[in-house]
Protein backbone atom coordinates (compact mmCIF):
# COMPACT_ATOMS: atom_id res chain seq x y z
CA UNK A 1 0.00 0.00 0.00
CA UNK A 2 1.27 3.43 -0.92
CA UNK A 3 1.62 5.94 1.92
CA UNK A 4 1.52 9.49 0.63
CA UNK A 5 2.61 12.74 2.27
CA UNK A 6 -0.98 13.97 2.42
CA UNK A 7 -3.91 11.77 1.32
CA UNK A 8 -5.99 14.92 0.83
CA UNK A 9 -3.95 15.76 -2.26
CA UNK A 10 -5.39 12.84 -4.23
CA UNK A 11 -8.71 11.50 -5.47
CA UNK A 12 -7.09 8.13 -6.14
CA UNK A 13 -3.64 6.63 -5.75
CA UNK A 14 -3.63 3.77 -8.24
CA UNK A 15 -3.50 5.29 -10.75
CA UNK A 16 -2.62 8.57 -9.04
CA UNK A 17 -4.96 11.50 -9.66
CA UNK A 18 -4.69 14.86 -7.95
CA UNK A 19 -7.72 16.31 -6.18
CA UNK A 20 -8.57 19.90 -7.01
CA UNK A 21 -11.45 22.26 -6.38
CA UNK A 22 -13.72 23.60 -9.10
CA UNK A 23 -15.86 26.61 -8.32
CA UNK A 24 -19.58 26.03 -8.88
CA UNK A 25 -20.00 29.58 -10.03
CA UNK A 26 -16.98 30.69 -12.08
CA UNK A 27 -15.40 27.30 -12.82
CA UNK A 28 -11.99 28.26 -11.43
CA UNK A 29 -9.86 25.20 -10.66
CA UNK A 30 -7.30 25.18 -7.83
CA UNK A 31 -5.01 22.70 -6.16
CA UNK A 32 -5.02 21.43 -3.46
CA UNK A 33 -8.68 21.26 -2.43
CA UNK A 34 -9.76 24.48 -0.71
CA UNK A 35 -12.79 25.73 1.13
CA UNK A 36 -13.66 28.57 -1.22
CA UNK A 37 -12.93 29.93 -4.66
CA UNK A 38 -9.95 32.33 -4.74
CA UNK A 39 -11.43 34.18 -7.71
CA UNK A 40 -15.01 34.79 -6.57
CA UNK A 41 -14.80 33.61 -2.89
CA UNK A 42 -17.82 31.32 -3.27
CA UNK A 43 -17.55 28.60 -0.63
CA UNK A 44 -18.11 24.90 -1.22
CA UNK A 45 -16.42 24.19 -4.54
CA UNK A 46 -16.70 20.71 -6.04
CA UNK A 47 -13.80 18.32 -5.60
CA UNK A 48 -12.58 17.12 -8.99
CA UNK A 49 -9.84 14.86 -10.29
CA UNK A 50 -7.31 16.92 -12.21
CA UNK A 51 -5.91 15.83 -15.56
CA UNK A 52 -3.05 13.35 -15.14
CA UNK A 53 -0.98 14.70 -18.03
CA UNK A 54 0.08 18.06 -19.34
CA UNK A 55 3.08 20.11 -20.41
CA UNK A 56 5.87 21.83 -18.50
CA UNK A 57 4.96 25.52 -18.11
CA UNK A 58 8.16 26.55 -16.34
CA UNK A 59 10.87 24.81 -14.37
CA UNK A 60 14.07 25.11 -12.35
CA UNK A 61 16.48 22.84 -10.51
CA UNK A 62 16.90 22.93 -6.76
CA UNK A 63 20.67 22.66 -6.46
CA UNK A 64 21.07 23.31 -2.72
CA UNK A 65 19.34 21.56 0.22
CA UNK A 66 16.35 23.59 1.44
CA UNK A 67 16.19 24.42 5.15
CA UNK A 68 13.75 22.49 7.36
CA UNK A 69 10.87 21.64 7.24
CA UNK A 70 12.32 20.04 4.06
CA UNK A 71 13.22 16.41 4.73
CA UNK A 72 16.16 15.25 2.61
CA UNK A 73 16.32 11.67 1.29
CA UNK A 74 17.86 9.05 3.58
CA UNK A 75 20.86 8.87 1.26
CA UNK A 76 21.41 12.62 1.48
CA UNK A 77 20.41 15.56 -0.64
CA UNK A 78 20.79 15.55 -4.37
CA UNK A 79 19.52 18.22 -6.76
CA UNK A 80 15.98 17.85 -8.06
CA UNK A 81 13.90 19.57 -10.71
CA UNK A 82 10.61 21.31 -9.96
CA UNK A 83 8.20 23.17 -12.15
CA UNK A 84 4.63 24.07 -12.94
CA UNK A 85 2.76 21.73 -15.24
CA UNK A 86 -0.11 22.99 -17.38
CA UNK A 87 -2.98 20.55 -16.83
CA UNK A 88 -5.39 22.58 -18.93
CA UNK A 89 -7.61 24.01 -16.21
CA UNK A 90 -4.81 24.79 -13.82
CA UNK A 91 -1.02 24.93 -13.48
CA UNK A 92 0.23 22.59 -10.74
CA UNK A 93 3.62 22.85 -9.04
CA UNK A 94 5.56 19.67 -8.41
CA UNK A 95 8.70 17.64 -8.80
CA UNK A 96 9.78 16.91 -12.37
CA UNK A 97 11.40 13.50 -12.83
CA UNK A 98 13.17 14.61 -16.01
CA UNK A 99 16.87 14.85 -16.72
CA UNK A 100 17.79 18.55 -16.53
CA UNK A 101 19.21 18.37 -20.04
CA UNK A 102 15.80 17.34 -21.37
CA UNK A 103 13.77 19.92 -19.46
CA UNK A 104 12.07 22.54 -21.59
CA UNK A 105 8.89 24.58 -21.55
CA UNK A 106 6.26 22.61 -23.44
CA UNK A 107 7.62 19.16 -22.61
CA UNK A 108 4.76 16.63 -22.30
CA UNK A 109 4.64 15.03 -18.83
CA UNK A 110 2.34 12.76 -16.83
CA UNK A 111 1.53 12.31 -13.17
CA UNK A 112 3.33 9.64 -11.11
CA UNK A 113 4.14 8.99 -7.45
CA UNK A 114 7.70 9.22 -6.17
CA UNK A 115 9.20 8.46 -2.75
CA UNK A 116 10.42 11.42 -0.66
CA UNK A 117 12.22 11.95 2.64
CA UNK A 118 13.22 8.70 4.32
CA UNK A 119 11.50 6.80 1.51
CA UNK A 120 8.52 5.64 3.56
CA UNK A 121 6.14 8.12 1.93
CA UNK A 122 5.46 9.30 -1.59
CA UNK A 123 4.44 12.55 -3.17
CA UNK A 124 3.18 13.36 -6.63
CA UNK A 125 5.57 14.22 -9.43
CA UNK A 126 5.60 14.47 -13.20
CA UNK A 127 7.71 12.40 -15.58
CA UNK A 128 8.23 12.79 -19.32
CA UNK A 129 5.50 11.09 -21.31
CA UNK A 130 7.15 8.10 -23.02
Amino acid sequence: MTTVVDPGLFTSLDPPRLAGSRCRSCGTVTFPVGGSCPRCTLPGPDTVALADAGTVWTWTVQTFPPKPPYVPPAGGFSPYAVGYVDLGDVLVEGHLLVEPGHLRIGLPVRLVLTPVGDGSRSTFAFEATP
Partner: protein
Amino acid sequence: MTVAIVGVGMTRFGRHDELSGLDLAEQAVREALADAGTAWSDVDLAVGGSNVSGKPDALVSRLGLTGLAFPTVRNGCATGGVALATAADAIRAGRARTAVVVGFDKHERGAFASDPASYGLGAWYGETGLMVTTQYFAMKTRRYLHEHGLSEESLARVSARAFRNGAAHPRAWRRSPLSVEQVLAAAPVNPPLTQYMLCQPSQGAVALVVTGEERAADLAERPVRLAAVSVRTRRYGSFEVFSPSLDPVPRRSPSIDAADSAFRTAGLSPSEVDVAQVQDTDSGSELIHLAETGLCAHGEQEKLLADGQTDAEGALPVNTDGGCLANGEPIGASGLRQVHEVVRQLQGRALGRQVPGAPRVGFTHVYGAPGTSSCAVLTLEGARS
Protein backbone atom coordinates in the same frame (compact mmCIF):
# COMPACT_ATOMS: atom_id res chain seq x y z
CA MET B 1 -1.68 67.86 3.41
CA THR B 2 1.48 67.03 1.51
CA VAL B 3 4.10 65.04 3.31
CA ALA B 4 7.83 65.47 2.79
CA ILE B 5 11.00 63.62 3.69
CA VAL B 6 13.39 65.98 5.45
CA GLY B 7 16.09 63.66 6.75
CA VAL B 8 17.61 60.30 5.90
CA GLY B 9 19.98 57.95 7.70
CA MET B 10 21.38 54.56 6.80
CA THR B 11 23.94 52.10 8.12
CA ARG B 12 26.32 50.22 5.95
CA PHE B 13 24.59 47.10 4.59
CA GLY B 14 26.19 43.67 4.88
CA ARG B 15 27.44 41.84 7.97
CA HIS B 16 27.64 43.51 11.35
CA ASP B 17 28.87 40.83 13.69
CA GLU B 18 29.36 43.21 16.63
CA LEU B 19 26.06 45.06 16.37
CA SER B 20 22.47 44.01 17.08
CA GLY B 21 19.54 44.92 14.87
CA LEU B 22 18.52 47.55 17.44
CA ASP B 23 22.07 48.96 17.42
CA LEU B 24 21.80 49.38 13.65
CA ALA B 25 18.37 50.95 13.92
CA GLU B 26 19.55 53.43 16.55
CA GLN B 27 22.47 54.43 14.35
CA ALA B 28 20.20 55.04 11.35
CA VAL B 29 17.71 57.09 13.37
CA ARG B 30 20.43 59.28 14.87
CA GLU B 31 21.83 59.96 11.41
CA ALA B 32 18.39 60.81 10.02
CA LEU B 33 17.67 63.19 12.90
CA ALA B 34 21.04 64.88 12.42
CA ASP B 35 20.37 65.10 8.69
CA ALA B 36 17.09 66.89 9.40
CA GLY B 37 18.74 69.01 12.08
CA THR B 38 16.13 67.97 14.60
CA ALA B 39 15.98 65.98 17.84
CA TRP B 40 14.17 62.83 18.96
CA SER B 41 12.23 64.96 21.46
CA ASP B 42 10.71 66.78 18.48
CA VAL B 43 9.34 63.55 17.01
CA ASP B 44 5.77 62.66 17.94
CA LEU B 45 5.37 59.42 15.99
CA ALA B 46 7.72 56.65 14.99
CA VAL B 47 6.82 53.72 12.76
CA GLY B 48 9.14 50.74 12.87
CA GLY B 49 9.54 47.57 10.89
CA SER B 50 11.72 44.55 11.48
CA ASN B 51 11.08 40.98 10.48
CA VAL B 52 13.41 39.14 12.85
CA SER B 53 15.42 41.61 14.94
CA GLY B 54 13.26 42.51 17.88
CA LYS B 55 10.63 45.04 18.74
CA PRO B 56 11.26 48.38 17.04
CA ASP B 57 9.57 50.26 19.86
CA ALA B 58 12.32 49.08 22.22
CA LEU B 59 14.29 51.90 20.54
CA VAL B 60 12.63 54.38 22.88
CA SER B 61 14.92 53.10 25.65
CA ARG B 62 17.91 54.25 23.61
CA LEU B 63 16.60 57.35 21.88
CA GLY B 64 14.55 58.84 24.65
CA LEU B 65 11.41 58.00 26.60
CA THR B 66 9.40 60.86 25.20
CA GLY B 67 6.03 59.14 25.18
CA LEU B 68 5.57 59.27 21.41
CA ALA B 69 3.34 56.80 19.56
CA PHE B 70 5.38 53.96 18.04
CA PRO B 71 3.41 51.52 15.88
CA THR B 72 5.20 48.52 14.43
CA VAL B 73 4.34 47.19 10.99
CA ARG B 74 5.22 43.84 9.53
CA ASN B 75 4.64 43.08 5.88
CA GLY B 76 7.65 41.10 4.74
CA CYS B 77 9.57 42.74 1.92
CA ALA B 78 6.90 45.46 1.67
CA THR B 79 7.48 46.53 5.28
CA GLY B 80 9.34 49.72 4.39
CA GLY B 81 6.64 50.98 2.08
CA VAL B 82 3.90 50.11 4.54
CA ALA B 83 5.78 51.91 7.32
CA LEU B 84 6.18 55.02 5.20
CA ALA B 85 2.50 54.97 4.23
CA THR B 86 1.48 54.57 7.88
CA ALA B 87 3.55 57.57 8.95
CA ALA B 88 2.30 59.68 6.06
CA ASP B 89 -1.32 58.85 6.91
CA ALA B 90 -0.81 59.82 10.55
CA ILE B 91 0.60 63.18 9.49
CA ARG B 92 -2.21 63.77 7.02
CA ALA B 93 -4.77 62.75 9.63
CA GLY B 94 -3.32 65.27 12.05
CA ARG B 95 -2.24 62.63 14.57
CA ALA B 96 1.46 63.49 14.16
CA ARG B 97 3.56 66.47 13.04
CA THR B 98 7.04 64.94 12.76
CA ALA B 99 7.53 61.23 12.27
CA VAL B 100 10.49 58.89 12.12
CA VAL B 101 10.22 55.81 9.95
CA VAL B 102 12.77 53.11 10.69
CA GLY B 103 13.34 49.70 9.14
CA PHE B 104 16.02 47.22 10.10
CA ASP B 105 16.92 43.56 10.15
CA LYS B 106 19.84 41.37 10.98
CA HIS B 107 19.45 38.07 9.17
CA GLU B 108 21.79 35.16 9.56
CA ARG B 109 23.57 33.56 6.62
CA GLY B 110 21.77 31.38 4.11
CA ALA B 111 18.38 31.26 2.48
CA PHE B 112 15.25 32.21 4.37
CA ALA B 113 13.29 29.33 5.89
CA SER B 114 9.50 29.44 5.82
CA ASP B 115 6.76 27.72 7.77
CA PRO B 116 3.98 26.25 5.58
CA ALA B 117 1.29 26.71 8.25
CA SER B 118 1.85 30.46 8.45
CA TYR B 119 1.04 30.58 4.73
CA GLY B 120 -2.02 28.38 5.13
CA LEU B 121 -0.30 25.44 3.42
CA GLY B 122 -0.05 21.78 4.41
CA ALA B 123 3.13 20.36 5.91
CA TRP B 124 3.72 18.32 2.73
CA TYR B 125 4.59 21.49 0.83
CA GLY B 126 7.61 22.19 3.01
CA GLU B 127 8.67 18.59 3.58
CA THR B 128 8.88 17.81 -0.12
CA GLY B 129 11.12 20.76 -0.88
CA LEU B 130 8.74 23.05 -2.75
CA MET B 131 8.81 25.87 -0.18
CA VAL B 132 11.92 27.66 -1.41
CA THR B 133 11.74 31.32 -2.34
CA THR B 134 14.53 31.15 -4.90
CA GLN B 135 12.76 28.33 -6.77
CA TYR B 136 9.86 30.69 -7.24
CA PHE B 137 12.06 33.48 -8.54
CA ALA B 138 13.72 31.09 -10.96
CA MET B 139 10.48 29.63 -12.30
CA LYS B 140 8.84 33.02 -12.68
CA THR B 141 11.93 34.36 -14.41
CA ARG B 142 12.20 31.43 -16.82
CA ARG B 143 8.59 31.83 -17.87
CA TYR B 144 8.96 35.59 -18.24
CA LEU B 145 12.06 35.27 -20.43
CA HIS B 146 10.19 32.69 -22.55
CA GLU B 147 7.07 34.83 -23.02
CA HIS B 148 8.90 38.06 -23.83
CA GLY B 149 11.89 36.80 -25.77
CA LEU B 150 14.52 37.92 -23.26
CA SER B 151 17.93 36.31 -22.94
CA GLU B 152 19.85 35.04 -19.93
CA GLU B 153 22.44 37.71 -20.81
CA SER B 154 19.88 40.31 -19.76
CA LEU B 155 19.72 38.68 -16.36
CA ALA B 156 23.48 38.90 -16.12
CA ARG B 157 23.48 42.54 -17.24
CA VAL B 158 21.12 43.38 -14.35
CA SER B 159 23.58 41.83 -11.92
CA ALA B 160 26.63 43.40 -13.50
CA ARG B 161 25.07 46.86 -13.26
CA ALA B 162 24.04 46.21 -9.66
CA PHE B 163 27.56 45.23 -8.66
CA ARG B 164 29.00 48.15 -10.62
CA ASN B 165 26.74 50.54 -8.70
CA GLY B 166 27.48 48.78 -5.42
CA ALA B 167 31.20 49.14 -6.01
CA ALA B 168 30.71 52.91 -6.19
CA HIS B 169 28.51 53.12 -3.09
CA PRO B 170 30.28 53.41 0.28
CA ARG B 171 27.43 51.79 2.25
CA ALA B 172 26.86 48.84 -0.09
CA TRP B 173 27.73 45.28 0.89
CA ARG B 174 29.14 44.00 -2.43
CA ARG B 175 31.83 46.44 -3.51
CA SER B 176 33.50 44.49 -6.32
CA PRO B 177 32.33 44.81 -9.91
CA LEU B 178 31.52 41.61 -11.81
CA SER B 179 31.39 41.16 -15.56
CA VAL B 180 28.41 39.73 -17.44
CA GLU B 181 30.57 36.69 -18.17
CA GLN B 182 31.42 36.18 -14.49
CA VAL B 183 27.75 36.37 -13.53
CA LEU B 184 26.74 33.84 -16.19
CA ALA B 185 29.55 31.46 -15.27
CA ALA B 186 28.74 31.45 -11.54
CA ALA B 187 27.09 28.52 -9.74
CA PRO B 188 23.55 27.91 -11.13
CA VAL B 189 21.70 28.10 -7.80
CA ASN B 190 18.25 27.79 -9.34
CA PRO B 191 18.71 27.95 -13.11
CA PRO B 192 18.38 30.25 -14.98
CA LEU B 193 19.44 32.19 -11.87
CA THR B 194 23.10 31.93 -10.90
CA GLN B 195 24.67 32.79 -7.58
CA TYR B 196 25.14 36.45 -8.51
CA MET B 197 21.59 36.85 -9.78
CA LEU B 198 20.09 36.24 -6.32
CA CYS B 199 20.35 38.55 -3.35
CA GLN B 200 21.35 37.22 0.05
CA PRO B 201 19.87 37.86 3.50
CA SER B 202 21.91 40.65 5.06
CA GLN B 203 21.93 43.25 7.79
CA GLY B 204 21.28 46.96 7.89
CA ALA B 205 18.97 49.77 8.94
CA VAL B 206 17.47 52.87 7.34
CA ALA B 207 15.55 55.76 8.88
CA LEU B 208 13.65 58.72 7.48
CA VAL B 209 12.32 61.88 9.08
CA VAL B 210 8.93 62.81 7.64
CA THR B 211 6.88 65.94 8.26
CA GLY B 212 3.94 67.83 6.89
CA GLU B 213 4.92 70.23 4.18
CA GLU B 214 4.57 73.36 6.31
CA ARG B 215 7.38 72.17 8.59
CA ALA B 216 9.48 70.72 5.80
CA ALA B 217 11.11 73.96 4.71
CA ASP B 218 12.36 74.51 8.28
CA LEU B 219 14.01 71.12 8.45
CA ALA B 220 15.56 70.57 5.04
CA GLU B 221 17.13 72.70 2.36
CA ARG B 222 15.59 70.55 -0.31
CA PRO B 223 12.73 68.54 1.16
CA VAL B 224 11.56 65.68 -1.01
CA ARG B 225 7.82 65.47 -1.44
CA LEU B 226 6.13 62.12 -0.97
CA ALA B 227 3.85 62.65 -3.94
CA ALA B 228 2.25 59.22 -3.43
CA VAL B 229 2.70 55.96 -1.62
CA SER B 230 0.43 53.05 -2.47
CA VAL B 231 0.14 49.54 -1.10
CA ARG B 232 -1.70 46.74 -2.84
CA THR B 233 -2.17 43.03 -2.27
CA ARG B 234 -2.47 40.49 -5.05
CA ARG B 235 -5.58 39.98 -7.10
CA TYR B 236 -6.68 36.61 -8.41
CA GLY B 237 -4.24 35.25 -10.96
CA SER B 238 -1.05 36.79 -9.66
CA PHE B 239 1.99 34.45 -9.84
CA GLU B 240 2.96 34.38 -6.18
CA VAL B 241 5.52 32.56 -4.12
CA PHE B 242 4.40 29.36 -2.37
CA SER B 243 1.52 28.62 -4.75
CA PRO B 244 0.80 24.92 -5.23
CA SER B 245 -1.27 25.92 -8.23
CA LEU B 246 -1.73 28.89 -10.55
CA ASP B 247 -4.34 30.10 -12.96
CA PRO B 248 -3.59 28.92 -16.50
CA VAL B 249 -2.96 32.56 -17.45
CA PRO B 250 -1.25 34.25 -14.47
CA ARG B 251 -1.54 38.04 -14.54
CA ARG B 252 -2.45 41.03 -12.36
CA SER B 253 0.62 41.33 -10.17
CA PRO B 254 0.14 43.65 -7.18
CA SER B 255 3.11 45.62 -8.50
CA ILE B 256 0.99 46.68 -11.47
CA ASP B 257 -1.78 47.91 -9.19
CA ALA B 258 0.48 49.62 -6.65
CA ALA B 259 2.49 51.44 -9.32
CA ASP B 260 -0.61 52.48 -11.22
CA SER B 261 -2.19 53.82 -8.04
CA ALA B 262 0.98 55.69 -7.03
CA PHE B 263 1.41 57.35 -10.43
CA ARG B 264 -2.27 58.31 -10.60
CA THR B 265 -2.19 59.80 -7.11
CA ALA B 266 0.98 61.73 -7.93
CA GLY B 267 -0.40 62.92 -11.25
CA LEU B 268 2.74 61.74 -13.01
CA SER B 269 3.47 59.08 -15.59
CA PRO B 270 6.19 56.44 -15.50
CA SER B 271 7.90 58.15 -18.43
CA GLU B 272 8.58 61.17 -16.21
CA VAL B 273 10.67 59.16 -13.74
CA ASP B 274 14.29 60.31 -13.54
CA VAL B 275 15.54 57.65 -11.14
CA ALA B 276 13.93 54.38 -10.04
CA GLN B 277 14.58 51.71 -7.46
CA VAL B 278 12.69 48.48 -8.13
CA GLN B 279 12.76 45.28 -6.13
CA ASP B 280 15.59 43.08 -7.35
CA THR B 281 15.60 40.14 -4.98
CA ASP B 282 16.89 38.48 -8.13
CA SER B 283 17.78 39.70 -11.60
CA GLY B 284 14.62 38.27 -13.10
CA SER B 285 12.48 40.15 -10.60
CA GLU B 286 14.04 43.43 -11.67
CA LEU B 287 13.30 42.71 -15.32
CA ILE B 288 9.70 41.84 -14.51
CA HIS B 289 9.15 44.77 -12.16
CA LEU B 290 10.53 47.31 -14.64
CA ALA B 291 7.70 46.42 -16.98
CA GLU B 292 5.01 45.80 -14.35
CA THR B 293 5.52 49.26 -12.88
CA GLY B 294 5.24 50.83 -16.33
CA LEU B 295 8.83 52.04 -16.51
CA CYS B 296 9.28 50.13 -19.78
CA ALA B 297 7.36 47.78 -22.04
CA HIS B 298 7.46 43.99 -21.67
CA GLY B 299 10.38 42.79 -23.79
CA GLU B 300 12.00 46.22 -23.99
CA GLN B 301 14.38 45.33 -21.14
CA GLU B 302 16.80 43.48 -23.40
CA LYS B 303 17.69 46.57 -25.39
CA LEU B 304 17.56 48.96 -22.42
CA LEU B 305 20.15 46.88 -20.58
CA ALA B 306 22.34 46.17 -23.60
CA ASP B 307 22.43 49.92 -24.32
CA GLY B 308 23.28 50.86 -20.72
CA GLN B 309 20.08 52.88 -20.36
CA THR B 310 19.53 51.66 -16.79
CA ASP B 311 22.94 52.95 -15.68
CA ALA B 312 23.14 56.17 -13.70
CA GLU B 313 23.96 58.06 -16.91
CA GLY B 314 21.24 56.36 -18.95
CA ALA B 315 17.71 57.39 -19.77
CA LEU B 316 16.22 55.24 -16.98
CA PRO B 317 18.65 54.92 -14.06
CA VAL B 318 17.68 51.87 -11.98
CA ASN B 319 18.87 50.68 -8.57
CA THR B 320 21.60 53.26 -8.47
CA ASP B 321 22.84 52.11 -5.04
CA GLY B 322 23.24 48.53 -6.22
CA GLY B 323 19.79 47.38 -5.11
CA CYS B 324 19.21 44.17 -3.20
CA LEU B 325 21.73 42.37 -5.38
CA ALA B 326 24.63 44.48 -4.08
CA ASN B 327 23.21 45.28 -0.64
CA GLY B 328 21.59 42.02 0.29
CA GLU B 329 18.19 42.04 1.88
CA PRO B 330 17.56 42.99 5.47
CA ILE B 331 13.82 42.58 4.94
CA GLY B 332 12.68 45.43 7.17
CA ALA B 333 15.22 47.87 5.72
CA SER B 334 15.19 47.26 1.96
CA GLY B 335 12.18 49.36 1.07
CA LEU B 336 13.47 52.33 3.00
CA ARG B 337 16.93 51.91 1.47
CA GLN B 338 15.28 52.61 -1.85
CA VAL B 339 13.69 55.78 -0.48
CA HIS B 340 17.02 56.82 1.06
CA GLU B 341 18.70 56.48 -2.32
CA VAL B 342 15.99 58.35 -4.22
CA VAL B 343 15.93 61.20 -1.70
CA ARG B 344 19.69 61.63 -1.98
CA GLN B 345 19.59 61.40 -5.79
CA LEU B 346 16.91 64.08 -6.03
CA GLN B 347 18.85 66.28 -3.61
CA GLY B 348 22.01 65.83 -5.70
CA ARG B 349 23.95 64.18 -2.91
CA ALA B 350 23.99 60.49 -3.79
CA LEU B 351 26.62 58.56 -1.86
CA GLY B 352 27.44 56.43 -4.89
CA ARG B 353 26.78 57.19 -8.56
CA GLN B 354 24.87 60.45 -8.89
CA VAL B 355 22.34 60.62 -11.70
CA PRO B 356 23.38 63.66 -13.74
CA GLY B 357 21.08 66.43 -14.90
CA ALA B 358 19.28 67.30 -11.63
CA PRO B 359 16.73 64.48 -11.44
CA ARG B 360 13.38 65.68 -10.11
CA VAL B 361 11.08 62.62 -10.08
CA GLY B 362 11.96 59.42 -8.28
CA PHE B 363 10.17 56.11 -7.92
CA THR B 364 10.47 53.18 -5.53
CA HIS B 365 8.93 49.73 -5.72
CA VAL B 366 8.97 46.80 -3.35
CA TYR B 367 7.22 43.50 -3.64
CA GLY B 368 6.94 40.85 -0.96
CA ALA B 369 5.24 37.66 -0.01
CA PRO B 370 2.42 36.87 0.07
CA GLY B 371 1.69 39.22 -2.79
CA THR B 372 2.05 42.72 -1.42
CA SER B 373 3.61 45.59 -3.34
CA SER B 374 4.27 49.13 -2.25
CA CYS B 375 5.25 51.92 -4.63
CA ALA B 376 6.14 55.53 -3.94
CA VAL B 377 6.58 58.56 -6.13
CA LEU B 378 8.95 61.18 -4.75
CA THR B 379 9.52 64.60 -6.22
CA LEU B 380 11.81 67.47 -5.52
CA GLU B 381 9.93 70.57 -4.43
CA GLY B 382 9.27 72.67 -7.49
CA ALA B 383 9.36 69.56 -9.65
CA ARG B 384 7.70 69.67 -13.03
CA SER B 385 4.28 68.06 -12.81
